[in-house]
């Protein structure tokens, strides 16, 4: 019996070590990857780079238009996709009857998550750019990107909502709360960390996508900063992609610098979300 116990303990210990190693090896890969990028690009990140428009001369080329394009787009996507995604998740978890239709919607959403981004590009081009005549504008790009990340937000938010114990809801209903009051005051706050994880992952995806935007006609050479949602635009990954595929190695370094900028933008955006998540994680423990 004792033999068994020590074997079990050994197993647990080995497991713990494996889990630890797995985590840290991911971190190490990340460090290598970021190190690689930093090595190539860090020296290029300077004011000229941040404040110039694209150029054929690597030392003059900058990503001002792309930075602003990305920021505009992310903000719009957040405004469009997060409310819709969370609403849909709430509907499916809290309102929809568990019937064929809701099962169908469920599978449909999971399926949409697997549709390649380029197809969303084709969809956006047909619907937003051509049918609604939004042209190759920020709005068209953001709407397309929102459709692309909606499934991610919906699925993550649903899981987060599902994880809130049922007894909490019952408690709320029992004091005469309506469904929406229950959701608003108890379910959503408790599900916030999980929802934010979904939003972070979705926004990370949105910021790194290239193909669908190229498809709907986001541009590559733009020498101005977009001023409203009807303006043409470019984004960071498009600019990066363009630089990477140039023959001159200097442009490859610019691409690395572009990636650093992109990560900084991403981090700043996520920092807020992460702060909120960590704050509410402390509050909701059961």
């Amino acid at each position, binding site marked *: 019996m004792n033999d068994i116990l020590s074997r079990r303990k050994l197993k647990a210990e080995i497991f713990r070590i494996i889990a630890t190693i797995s985590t840290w090896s991911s971190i190490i890969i990340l460090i290598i990857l970021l190190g690689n990028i930093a090595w190539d690009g860090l020296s290029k990140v300077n004011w000229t780079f941040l404040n110039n428009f694209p150029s*054929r001369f690597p030392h003059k080329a900058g990503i001002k238009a792309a930075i602003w394009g990305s920021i505009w787009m992310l903000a719009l996507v957040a405004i469009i996709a997060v409310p819709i995604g969370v609403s849909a998740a709430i509907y499916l978890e809290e309102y929809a009857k568990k019937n064929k239709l809701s099962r169908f919607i469920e599978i449909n959403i999971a399926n949409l998550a697997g549709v390649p981004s380029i197809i969303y590009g084709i969809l956006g081009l047909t619907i937003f750019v051509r049918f609604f005549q939004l042209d190759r504008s920020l709005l068209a790009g953001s709407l397309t990107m929102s459709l692309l990340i909606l499934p991610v937000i919906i699925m993550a938010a649903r899981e987060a909502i599902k994880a809130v114990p049922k007894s909490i809801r019952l408690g709320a209903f029992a004091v005469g709360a309506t469904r929406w009051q229950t959701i608003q005051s108890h379910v959503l706050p408790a599900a916030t960390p999980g929802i934010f994880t979904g939003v972070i992952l979705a926004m990370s995806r949105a910021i790194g996508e290239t193909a669908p935007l*190229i*498809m709907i*006609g986001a541009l*590559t050479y733009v020498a101005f900063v977009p001023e409203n949602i009807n303006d043409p635009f470019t984004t960071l990954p498009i600019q990066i992609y363009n630089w990477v*595929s*140039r*023959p001159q190695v200097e442009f490859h370094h610019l691409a690395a610098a572009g990636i650093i900028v992109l990560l900084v933008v991403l981090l700043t955006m996520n920092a807020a979300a992460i702060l909120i998540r960590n704050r509410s994680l402390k509050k909701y423990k059961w």
Partner: protein
Amino acid sequence: DSAKTSSANTLSGTVKIDGSSTVFPITEAVAEEFGKLYPKVRVTVGISGTGGGFKKYSIGETDINDASRPIKDKEIKKANENQIEFIELPVAYDGLSVVVNKNNSWLDYLTVNELHNIWKPGSQVHYWNDIRSNWPRKEIKLYGPGTDSGTFDYFTDAINGKSQSCRSDFTKSEDDNVLVQGVAGDTYALGFFGFAYYKENTDKLKIVPIDDGNGPISPSMESINNGTYSPLSRPIFIYVNPESLKRPEVDKFVEFYLAETYKLSEEVGYVGLPESLTKDIQQKYKTRSTGKWYSQK
């Protein structure tokens, strides 16, 4: 001169360009220079591929299309359906470069015929000594661009006599930089891609001179420009919508493009057209002569 600057300051509007990623660097350079003279004109350049660009062009969404190959009949038909015409303007040459690994010690040059034997559909060349019997009996690894690229289109046309006609068992990549890495990492490799990518990687690759009957010639600025590097130098184009030229900013832009392209294309790794040809093209533009032109020449 002051009159010119004042017109430059007042000229405004937008010029919408899309199309090939191969032509992009030249158009970008032109747009950059043009922007210095006419700061109020918004020039935008996209890269949705020659085909994707033509689709936008043929429904009037863009003023100019960058193309790494001449327009195809299907595309002309589409444009005609929408009453859209085009002026075809070659703007530079791109020399296709055939390259091998740095460690390849046996290869000195290839003839056009040998290239054809290697690349033709159903080719029986599997080992290096299938090409010339004194070469090593090592499996030859072929690298080429994606089958939908203008580069591939042109290469197959020039070597196999028919565009898109080619053996299929070679390793393909969409990105020429990636091909560079492929060939550089593989001793028994042979590949081809745009000249600009060779030029930036001369330390990693060995160029293959091509003999089309007049002796082996390596691609260079000069040999491409004067036409001796044959048959692997191809022209690249812009297609301009004559309707758009009614807007002065587009007209000014194209004019500027044709005037500056020789200098600017060399700056970004392409080869300018010979002077004689440039003259013809500028003439053609002035007369707004539409329709397919280059391929007939």
